């Protein structure tokens, strides 16, 4: 994946853009998120489409923001869109602890002033065998890891989602063990493809997509890309992750997109790209084989799924 200098949007510019969009469309947005309400924004897609593979097409803002798995707001795909209105993503802090030089809590604004926000168009493949193409804005996780100054003994990174049952109605029910947790191996976390996303389609991250900051690991099933992160912990042992804890026979720690490893519930050989009628073949590592296959050359992927 190539990122051209011209495609990099400084954080301030995109915040301003956001304000403009917010001002002119406030009433329309309050009522309902419709594709027509974003006609202005969508008219300049060239920023994103440049990065697309020839077989891929961007999914619409409406598709990306009304069809989500974010159980903190309910288990149905439409729940995050419908139930996330009361969630307050600002102010926001991220606690850094575990095997680091100095445990500390960062203000999100402080983190953002130290990084460069880039456009990254990624395929997102859900373990439920559907997929989308999403234009994210964000920065490489490696930049934050550098700020966190982990010790050399740190081999894994754990992420924790915020726990606010009063703002996240799904958390009032114990569907999974809250708060949601995910993890990566250090080399996966440092891979240039791995980003912390703060926006999509030039908007600040919508609540239903993991406001204000979420992980995006495009070669892994969507559930690895944990949303609304409040804590990042550096560890020397493999951390427990939410879905693996709930059903270890179905979800592994690695959860790399892999058409050859069967899942008891969904065949992973094919997927439905949202917006398309016929299924398409699922690609190894979701099509990012070139960038990440080397991370797993010594790993039996049928065992470590």
């Amino acid at each position, binding site marked *: 994946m190539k990122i051209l200098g011209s495609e990099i949007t400084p954080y301030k510019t995109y915040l301003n853009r956001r304000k403009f969009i917010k001002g002119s469309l406030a009433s329309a947005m309050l009522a309902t998120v419709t594709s027509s309400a974003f006609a202005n924004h969508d008219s300049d897609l060239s920023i994103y489409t440049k990065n697309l593979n020839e077989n891929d097409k961007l999914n619409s803002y409406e598709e990306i923001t009304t*069809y989500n798995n974010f159980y903190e707001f309910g*288990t149905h795909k*439409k729940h995050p869109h419908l139930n996330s209105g009361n969630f307050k993503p600002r102010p926001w802090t991220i606690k850094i602890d575990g095997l680091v030089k100095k445990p500390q809590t960062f203000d999100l604004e402080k983190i953002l002033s130290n990084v460069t926000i880039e456009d990254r168009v990624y395929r997102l493949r859900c373990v439920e065998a559907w997929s989308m193409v999403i234009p994210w804005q964000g920065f490489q996780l490696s930049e934050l890891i550098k700020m966190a100054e982990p010790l050399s003994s740190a081999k894994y990174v754990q992420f924790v989602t915020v726990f606010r049952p009063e703002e996240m109605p799904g958390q009032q029910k114990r569907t*999974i063990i809250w708060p949601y947790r995910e993890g990566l191996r250090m080399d996966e976390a440092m891979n240039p493809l791995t980003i912390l996303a703060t926006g999509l389609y030039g908007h600040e991250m919508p609540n239903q997509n993991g406001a204000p900051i979420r992980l995006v690991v495009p070669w892994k099933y969507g559930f690895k890309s944990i949303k609304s992160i409040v804590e990042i912990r550096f560890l020397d042992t493999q951390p427990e992750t939410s879905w693996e804890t709930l059903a270890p026979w179905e979800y592994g720690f690695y959860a790399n997109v892999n058409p050859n490893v*069967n899942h*008891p*519930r969904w*065949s992973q050989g094919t997927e*439905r790209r949202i917006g398309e009628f016929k*299924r398409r073949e699922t690609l190894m590592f979701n099509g990012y084989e070139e960038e990440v296959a080397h991370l797993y050359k010594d790993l039996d992927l049928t065992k470590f799924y």
Partner: protein
Amino acid sequence: MFSTKNFNRSKPVLFILILFPSLLWAYQFVTGNLGVNPIEKLMDELGLMALRLIIITLMITTLSNIRPLKSIVVLRRMIGLFAFYYVCLHFSTYIVLDHFLDMQFIIQDIIKRPFITFGFISFLFLIPLASTSTNNMIKRLGFKLWKRIHYLIYPVAILASMHFYVLVRADKTEPVIYMGIIILLLLHRIFKRLTRPQLVQ
């Protein structure tokens, strides 16, 4: 009020009410109003409707044990056939829209994935029920054999609710409620059978 005549009279209204959702979903599907993932939505709605109708047929039998509601049983056949209708639509959505008649893939899917296996067996068991639903068939088979065949509704209901239970990833409340209802209805039948006065030979 709950006479056979009145139940029979309600049939046309009931027919339209139960048929209507399928027409609505078909219309919404064709016009692109079934949400972001319309094939999945269609399949889920059709399947859920089928399961609910199966449970309703079991409930009708139980309700007909209450003396004033005895005649409600005249509605059972129609609702049972509608359950079969929705199962057929559900299954053909899976075959045609979801997998585009890729039979090799579908067969693998049915064998390998327990939840699909449950659903498929449930569908197979419904076929003899639907095809022996006419008065003529009852006569030809004799009531005893016919009734025996129709006991298949019990495995059908259990498998269908398991199909739903396994499918749900985390919040299993709804499938558990359905399973609970089915178990209660089955327990009632077993209890009734055990307490029935035995005929002396």
